[in-house]
């Protein structure tokens, strides 16, 4: 028998994948180069595929007609449990909305920081006692490992590139690094989940730090101080940006709830 895994934990993992998948999909048709357009769309495809599997698992636990679609399209901002990092627009800080010109460096740095984290998380979860989550993790780790390789390559190329690219990618690192503190902040459902999965997120921090430090140094970038503020997206307390993202993603389904094609 499968031990009970908090549904909120599955939703947290699913929301992370869906929100970043939706964000990165904004590049579809607007990529800085054709290959990058395809790369980021493929990246989103993987993430949205992972989100579907996780929502299906969550829906099975919730029961009562819940489905992957109801969880993705009919929940609102306070119900989403993704890291705040993943909902931010592809812009430097204070750049208003996602309609501003997208900054590729921000995209690259975020994908790098998150993929480096999820490679470690999925690697650990694929050995966990919960067979369904372990199966999803075993698939996801292969995909995220490739995302990490891709974003890390770009981090090196931009960091160890021109003065302009170096300055822009350093600005993105300075902007995004403080948000990563949410990776190991406390939440009730993660603590409960850890009793089933055996995953102690704090224990992965050293490995993550090493991946990040090695890449930043190779890319001739410096790591900023973390700062004091810790974001709270995984508790359902989000930045102003998630609402706009969900509005764009959910409006069609909400206008035509039973539509099929």
């Amino acid at each position, binding site marked *: 028998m499968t031990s009970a895994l908090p549904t909120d934990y599955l939703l947290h993992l699913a929301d992370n994948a869906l929100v970043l998948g939706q964000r990165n999909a904004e590049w579809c048709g607007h990529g800085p180069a054709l*290959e990058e357009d*395809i*790369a980021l769309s*493929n*990246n*989103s*495809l*993987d*993430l*949205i*595929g*992972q989100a*579907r*599997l996780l929502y299906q698992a969550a829906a099975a636990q919730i029961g009562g007609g819940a489905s992957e679609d109801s969880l993705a399209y009919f929940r609102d901002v306070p119900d989403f449990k993704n890291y705040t990092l993943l909902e931010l627009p592809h812009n430097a800080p204070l750049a208003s909305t996602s309609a501003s010109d997208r900054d590729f460096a921000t995209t690259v740095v975020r994908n790098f920081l998150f993929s*480096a984290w999820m*490679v*470690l998380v999925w*690697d650990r979860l694929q050995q966990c006692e919960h*067979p*369904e989550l*372990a*199966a*999803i993790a*075993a*698939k*996801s*780790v*292969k*995909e995220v*490992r*490739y995302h*990490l*390789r*891709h974003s*890390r*390559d770009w981090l090196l190329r931009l960091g160890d590139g021109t003065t302009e690219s170096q300055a822009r990618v350093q600005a993105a690192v300075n902007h995004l690094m403080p948000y990563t503190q949410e990776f190991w902040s406390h939440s009730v459902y993660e603590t409960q989940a850890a009793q089933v999965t055996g995953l102690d997120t704090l224990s992965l921090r050293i490995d993550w730090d090493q*991946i990040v430090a090695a890449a930043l140094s190779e890319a001739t970038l410096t790591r900023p101080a973390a700062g004091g503020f810790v974001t709270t997206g995984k508790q359902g307390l989000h930045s102003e940006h998630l609402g706009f993202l969900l509005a764009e993603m959910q409006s069609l389904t909400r206008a035509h709830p039973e539509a099929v094609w």
Partner: protein
Amino acid sequence: MNAQIARAWDLLEVLTDPEIPVVTLRELGILRDVREGPEGLDVVITPTYSGCPAMSQIQDDVQSCLQQSGIAARVITQLAPAWTTDWMSPEAKDKLRAYGIAPPHACPSPSGSVVQFAARSARHPAGSELLAVACPQCQSLNTTETSHFGSTACKALYRCLDCLEPFDYFKPY
């Protein structure tokens, strides 16, 4: 029942991947099992990439292929063990090559670090764990990766530096 299972395998043998129509679902390792189920046969398939858009097409293809021959079956999607390109048969790899797609190398051994980085091309072998990818046209190993991602989730884009042809490489997964 055993005869019907054998017949189902025969019928399903004609089904190919929707995006790579030269290899069958069985050769790719997507079609895992055909067995007796509660209401007819259970056909077990395993998804490739989590978000691969071909999966629902494959499910429909399996369903309608058996239905047309009057075999009641349901399609079961099974996640574990996770699909890997290592399941691809040698015949499938030959067919891919003949079709112009470089077949995948063996997956790196799981004993190493979970984080794996590979050289970008044969000309930059520093830190390489990846063997060079042979051009499916001229077999040259002097090739370079143009893009990590290609026309589908499962492929990367390469270029041969000898015959100058671009080609797809089926990524080890």
